[in-house]
């Protein structure tokens, strides 16, 4: 099946073009670099940006982990992991600690990342200003001039309407004190993991044809007001599998009587805790 395709699917010319975009992104943290995104054998909107970034940085000795919603066994994660196993023949893993490259949709692993690891985010809408102003030419100007007042208007309106900032995922951040950036639809619970991370963070938006990056140890600040500071989500429940109270929990409906259970969204984190002898909440 891999016969007829280059290592990691993309031809070397395309990889070089994407690597140039990545390097530019690393040099200008948070800036959206336009790139000539290719059609991939997976649909747009299903991670083609992340796949192109991963394909361009993947080497023979890399160990790849792919998660979707924090889990290694969700259908799209399985599909993308299989794709790279097939077209690149690289080793894959579900263990965060063993991976050199982690492609993700919507989560950052609970296990702290280390230097040398690369996170690759799948990004649906890279432009944080899109919801306020749909025109790209206007938004490019706003970025160039660091003119981000409109973003705070949205947060202000949230407080007026809901008494608090209502954005709960894809929560906008300011990178290295300069560019406003969409962190992709990770829960705001994961935003602090972006700040000064020792790992390199790469973001690929295939349909929207943009790549951006947060180099290691870069300050990343979530937007807020002084008197309405950025707040993390919290659960009163614990994971029913490993008992963790500090990780992001998925809610599972058990029946039609309103009974529900909570389990870690990060399956690797949960499995590791269970292996270490942690029990679930009653």
């Amino acid at each position, binding site marked *: 099946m891999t016969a007829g395709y280059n290592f990691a699917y993309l031809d070397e010319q395309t990889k070089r073009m994407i690597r140039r975009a990545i390097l530019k992104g690393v040099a200008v943290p948070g800036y959206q670099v336009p790139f000539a995104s290719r059609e991939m054998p997976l649909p747009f909107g299903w991670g083609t940006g992340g796949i192109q970034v991963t394909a361009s940085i993947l080497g023979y000795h890399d160990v790849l982990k792919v998660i979707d919603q924090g889990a290694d066994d969700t259908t799209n994660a399985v599909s993308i992991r299989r794709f790279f196993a097939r077209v690149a023949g690289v080793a894959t893993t579900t263990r965060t600690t063993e991976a050199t490259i982690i492609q993700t949709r919507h989560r950052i692993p609970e296990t702290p990342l280390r230097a040398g690891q690369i996170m690759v985010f799948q990004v649906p809408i890279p432009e944080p200003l899109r919801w306020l102003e749909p025109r790209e030419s206007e938004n490019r100007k706003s970025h160039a001039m660091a003119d981000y007042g409109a973003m705070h*208007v949205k947060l202000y309106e949230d407080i007026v309407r809901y008494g608090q900032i209502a954005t709960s995922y894809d929560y906008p951040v300011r990178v290295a004190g300069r560019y406003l950036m969409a962190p992709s639809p990770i829960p705001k619970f994961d935003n602090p993991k972006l700040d000064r991370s020792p790992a390199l963070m790469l973001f690929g938006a295939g349909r929207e044809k943009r790549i951006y990056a947060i180099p290691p140890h870069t300050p990343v600040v979530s937007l807020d007001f002084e008197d309405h500071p950025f707040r993390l989500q919290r659960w009163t429940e614990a994971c029913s599998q490993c008992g963790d109270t500090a990780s992001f929990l998925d809610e599972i409906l058990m029946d039609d009587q309103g009974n529900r259970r909570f389990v870690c969204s990060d399956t690797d984190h949960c499995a590791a805790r269970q292996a270490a002898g942690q029990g679930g909440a009653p």
Partner: protein
Amino acid sequence: MIPCISVPFDPADPDDPEDAAGDGPLLEVSGLGFAYGSRMALADVDLTLWPGEVLAVAGESGSGKTTLLGCLSGELAPQAGRVGFLTREGKRVDMHSLGEAERRRLLRTDWGIVRQNPRDGLRLAVSAGANVGEPLMVLGHRHYGWLRGQAGDWLDRVEIPADRIDDPPATFSGGMQQRLQIARNLVTDPRIVLMDEPTGGLDVSVQARLLDLLRRLVSELDLAVVLVTHDLAVARLLADRLVVMKDGRIVETGLTDQVLDDPQHAYTQLLVSSVLQP
């Protein structure tokens, strides 16, 4: 070029210690020219505006008034001339040779622009409070309570009831929208405000109330204003000085009462005679 008739003209001199200290005119426009294709819309326009002064620009439609405002604010790039502006630091800069970033910064901090149609100067879908607070947020203010307090103060000053603070201006009357736009422009404490027919399109009684408000604010805040109007009554009520434009050129300039009571240029005489005397 039409020389200034009755106002002492003191061109800024960078070596003049008085100018360096920031005592010169706030705005010094010289030789401004603008053409749409081959149609000349503005030619040889010279203007000065002193701190705290209200200057009205009058003329009928097509005389170049609105083009002049566009060139002053940087929205249009004139093909000739310069727009000298005295910064807070006492430096005289040409608005059109500044980089885009620097010009935007100055426009945010030192300039206000009140448009004839308030819908062009407001975000209609967000609350009145956010409309007034936005310029402050752009300047980096990040305290919700303080921003709301400022918005409340300004709504009060422009006579908008406090309980409308969370309503979007789309639900406001035309006069109230215009007052909101004025608040949004004044909240940053600008040093110069451009107004394009601010009372245009409003009912006469609403106009009168708005003019009262403007007169009060201008004197309270000691604002420098360039006011474009086709309505000489508005000019008489608000302006210290008046320039009259025709076909893109200034045909007459002087103290407002002087120009209106003793017009020298034939066109001004025509304009004045066609208006009912107060």
